């Protein structure tokens, strides 16, 4: 069970959120296929802290950025989105 600190609403249950995956920055349009492939498809880091996007569906309906340790589930930081958002 995750308790996610929403920067707008405070500590909330994971059930209120929708996952948006690892945060990523998109490359410039003129970059080659390799760079785009990596940007699109190779998102995940090894076990440890990772910055990811969550949407507070049953709350303030905002995208937030959370840094979470994928090995322990400890949440290290949460913020309004800092990287370029690319969401489903």
């Amino acid at each position, binding site marked *: *069970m*995750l308790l996610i600190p929403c920067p707008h609403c405070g500590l909330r*249950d*994971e*059930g209120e959120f929708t*996952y948006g*995956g*690892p945060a990523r920055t998109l490359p410039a349009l003129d970059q080659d*296929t*390799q760079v785009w*492939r*990596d940007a*699109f*498809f*190779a*998102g*995940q880091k*090894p*076990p440890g802290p*990772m910055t*990811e996007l969550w949407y507070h569906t049953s709350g303030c309906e905002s995208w937030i950025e959370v840094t979470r340790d*994928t*090995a*322990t*589930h400890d949440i290290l930081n949460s913020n309004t989105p800092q990287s370029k958002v690319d969401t*489903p």
Partner: protein
Amino acid sequence: MAYSGLSLLSHALTGNKRWPAILSTPDMRSSYDIVIIGAGGHGLATAHYLAANHGITNIAVIESGWIGGGNTARNTTIVRSDYLLNSSFGLKNFALKLWSDLTQDLNFNLMYEPRGYVDLAHSDGELEHFTLRANAMRLRGGDADILTGQALQERVPELDFSGDKRFEISGALVQESGGVVRHDAVAWGFARKASTAGVHIFQNCPATGFETEGGKITAVQTPQGRIACKQAFISVAGASSAVAGMAGINLPLNSINVQAFVTEPVKPALDAVVNYNAGLSYISQTDKGEFVLGGATDGYSSFARRGSFERIEDVLARAVQMFPFLTRLRLMRHWSGTADIPMDGNAIVGRTPIEGLMINAGWGYAGFKATPAVGWCMAELLATGKTPDLIAPFALERFETGAEQDDGGIGPYPWLH
């Protein structure tokens, strides 16, 4: 030693104290033709078919933990081939054919029981889509039936059709050749046969690095020393991104926690595997009488192998919709596995950019059923250098060329597959 009724009887007479060990304990050589990393079902099946189909036995299988300690013996044991895409159906239907003879081939009781897989639809639209899938399967020689109303009630008598349900059951796709296979026996059956043929299997021996020369694999590093090899094969499921990362390969997948549950045992009540699709929850009953349940992933990246309560509640609530009598049972055991799920939800099987280094990854929470087929095809690729047609669509390059194999039409969101 072959297992038989006679061997059972004679060992019973000596108090079952003289059974020989299943695996030999060889000394590690400094070099092998092929090093297989990961002694799950997939890695061990590959070792077996290399020996049995191609006569290659100068092989080391190295395993960081113990045989079958990964997802092979954590899964809910369901085998089936009810997939829409040619690629997915083809490989899994070939596996289904192999499962039916494997107990004899391996001389090891895998308890393959084709007790039927019942996939429930909850709206007319969904049932129409299931009919499309069933027709696609039948055109390619698979078995599939669409059952509705009385016929479905007769097939699964305990299924609850009554009352005002939030998600009514409108029908089901039924694959009678689908069913269950005893998962730990699969790992041990392949291991025993491969070991008897001369393959060396080392437990507690992780791969810790790779050596390459001019873009070609030359050795695998382990704490027990360096193993030189002509080819290496990574088949480590939940650890795929970490192990491929050691070779500088960034795999297009996310690792996500998946849970399974077992209730206390009761008398036989359910003879099929039933899957609820309004949200995911599936259930079967073991020969011991326990109900085994599983559902969707926990929904976010994780290597923790620790489940979230959110999903427990979700899976059980749906199971009770199908079978209300379950409310009177208690859960006895519960565990997790790390599912490696690619961006299109389908596996990555074949070559890597490093010559001689092969990979099998991304089976997520759906790869147990494919175990013998992956072993068969990977053995062929390793032995002949030619990629069999059945695995060609699963090549790693597909993410660059845009040839994704997205069965569910879900898109590049691994946690939703």
